[in-house]
């Protein structure tokens, strides 16, 4: 191994030497040399400064005291291991039964924790990958030119990557369909748009169906439930289920941060459900409405909650979709809340009609 290393070093030394020699010779000789005009590169102060800045920034990022954190983590782990070893070696001698129990519990806990940690990390990585794909897609869509070189990936490869991450076998068929549709002449943007229309749009339809289903459920459940706290619980439960289901449709197990963002939205929904329950109660009391009035008030409240669920569902859809609707050619394909509202109203009225 040392031999290889030695060779490697030798080679580098040789390379720099020869380069240096050439440079020195050039400076010493001072002969006129005509260069090819195409080889000319911009070398003004601005670009140099810019380059320097970028280098400095890189250095800054790199020189953040990672090693400190690493040392802390290492020391901490070491401490835990030493402590544990100490505890168990002494404990098994002094009181083997209790220590055995503790050992069993800690094994169980570490299994559970490890599993959830793994899941979280996996989700986070998936989310990151999705984010990268999304950025690349939007770069390609926004780019004026066909600059797949600067982004480093062509639209075709990108779409294949997205298809790989999508679950289900229906996508396989639509993927084939997409491959039949694209021609070599299509630009990067066109390839992406055709992909969005052929492969992702069926998924959108599925997602919208899910959203409508969940929204209708919240309409009915909120309208039926008598107590505010139950409303809130129902909203939380249904909304969480919906988020997981929709993001799953696009092959995304939500990561930590995105889930936090979305759950914030869920809480807003819940607060609305609670507050509107109170308003309905107070309002109905004040107006002295009869039972029927109360019932229709509940239904209206349920519809409000349902619409909020639908809105949340759409937001999840937009977050989870690998190709966003930002491009002018795609903007008309964007699913509208109106479509879901229509579905909800027809489903609810069908329910009421069936009962009546």
């Amino acid at each position, binding site marked *: 191994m040392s031999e290889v290393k030695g060779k490697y070093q030798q080679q580098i030394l040789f390379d720099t030497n020869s380069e240096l020699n050439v440079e020195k010779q050039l400076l010493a000789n001072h002969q006129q040399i005509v260069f090819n005009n195409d080889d000319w590169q911009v070398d003004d102060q601005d670009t140099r400064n810019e380059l320097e800045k970028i280098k400095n920034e890189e250095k800054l990022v790199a020189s953040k005291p990672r090693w400190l954190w690493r040392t802390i983590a290492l020391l901490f782990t070491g401490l835990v291991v030493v402590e544990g070893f100490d505890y168990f070696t002494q404990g098994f001698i002094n009181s083997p039964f209790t220590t055995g129990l503790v050992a069993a519990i800690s094994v169980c806990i570490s299994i559970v924790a490890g599993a959830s940690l793994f899941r979280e990390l996996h989700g986070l990585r998936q989310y990151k990958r999705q984010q990268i794909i999304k950025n690349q897609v939007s770069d390609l869509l926004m780019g004026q030119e066909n600059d797949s070189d600067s982004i480093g990936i062509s639209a075709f490869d990108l779409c294949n990557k997205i298809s790989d991450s999508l679950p289900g076998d229906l996508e396989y068929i639509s993927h084939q369909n997409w491959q039949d549709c694209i021609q*070599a002449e299509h630009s990067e943007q066109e390839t992406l748009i055709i992909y969005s229309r*052929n492969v992702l749009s069926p998924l959108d339809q599925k997602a919208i169906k899910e959203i409508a289903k969940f929204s209708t459920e919240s309409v009915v459940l909120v309208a039926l439930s008598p107590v505010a706290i139950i409303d809130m619980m129902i909203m939380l439960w249904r909304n969480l289920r919906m988020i997981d289901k929709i993001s799953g449709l696009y092959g995304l197990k939500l990561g930590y941060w995105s889930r936090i963002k979305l759950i914030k939205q869920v809480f807003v929904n819940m607060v609305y459900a609670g507050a509107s329950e109170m308003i309905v109660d107070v309002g109905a009391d004040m107006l002295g409405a009869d039972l029927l009035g109360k019932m229709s008030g509940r239904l209206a409240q349920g519809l409000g909650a349902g619409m909020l669920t639908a809105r949340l569902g759409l937001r999840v859809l937009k977050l989870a979709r690998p190709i966003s609707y930002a491009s002018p*050619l795609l903007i008309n394909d964007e699913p509208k809340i109106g479509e879901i509202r229509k579905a909800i109203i027809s489903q609810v009225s069908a329910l009421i009609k069936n009962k009546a």
Partner: protein
Amino acid sequence: MRLINSDKFKKVKHKATGMLNRVIDQQVNLAVTGLSRSGKTAFITSLVNQLVNENSNSQLSFFNPVYEGRFIAAKRVPQKHFHIARFDYDTAIYCLEQPQPNWPEPTVGISEIRLAIRYRPKNSLLKYIDDIATLYVDITDYPGEWLLDLPLLDQTFEEWSEQMKALLKQEPRQQYAKHFITSVKQLDPFQAPNEEQLKDIAHEYTQLLHHFRYKLGLSVIQPGRFILPGDLDNAPILQFFPYLNFDDIDANAYQNAGEDTLIGMLRARFIEYKERVVRKFYQEHFLRFDRQIVLADCLTPLNKGPDSFADLQLAISLILESFSYGKSNVLTRLFSPKIDKLLFAATKADHVTPEQHDNLVSLLNQLVFQTKKQLSFDNLTMKTLAIAGVKTTTVGKTTHQGKLMPVIKGTTLNDNKLLTLFPGSVPAKIPNGDYWQQNPFKFVEFAPQVKTDPCQNLAHLRMDQVLQFLLGDKMK
């Protein structure tokens, strides 16, 4: 007893629906504008073919009615004007579907075609009337040569002669026009006209126009009927020419010159030509347009040189002056239709490699920059695309000096040989002197691709985007 029984009611409703349908039935008058050899006939053939032959193999992802599954079918229906020839779609498609496909013959006369497109409306008013709506599309094909006559409508004989003089005294026209200029100079304008002499000089002028068009690849050829007379061959109405020496004659004497003088006769024939030929053509075919597509072949002028290129620019701006543009509403649609959507299409995009399409688009954008600026004042929707009505090549890659390079492969039109090449890069801006000296661009004309599957539509490039832009919003 009920006042109206349900059967009767249904009948009345059905009738009312039918009437209302007729009232608001949509119709699009599509102006396919393009100079000769810009691929109008191929474009129309492909457009009709894409719509009439729509099937599951169609490459129409960008045409929303097809993509959303609302497109039912389209077919050719009898046209509105019976005295105009029918667009010979069958012959054109026959040419393209031969084992050795060929381009359709160039157009020599006016022809029309009418398509009826059935679709399911999505969210327009129509949805409340019927589940199925019909859109009628009228397309007129005509020789591109005649298009350049339209600017004559606003010109007097004197103005036109001056404009022609300016063109004839410039390169590249000058060196060929010398003899014509001298023979006009020798004429005495106030002499009694000699019919034979007039005919000879007009013939010489016609020869000159032929030379400009086919040898030099120039675009501004006026009057257009001279090189494509149609049924007017040898009629005296086509025997005139621009008088080039207005500086030498007295304006008053010119005004008072009667038809018994040579100049008077030239003027009379010019006016007759303008009124009888051009205005008739304009009124019959150019007044009622809703949508327009301007086809421009930027590649041939790039091959031919800077003069040809400048001429194309002039020709396009001249042509676009003849149309009326503006936002249309119900009233203007009924009484004086205006073009409210305009598509500039760089044709023959399949003759260059795909990564050059952006350049092609921006080149055409530069060509029509002035016109576009004026038209955007009228709040017109405009778009530029690089298209190919009938695809001739397949795209691939090859290694050249260790680098991967995009290439196209097709059968050449001239000698029917399979050729793989990189035709060079298209300039993204209007090229200047340096570019022409290096002359990096050499474009080869290809024959249409052989059709492998009889059920398939003609292979095309971005025809779906063309359809979406021109018809998509009418089929909501």
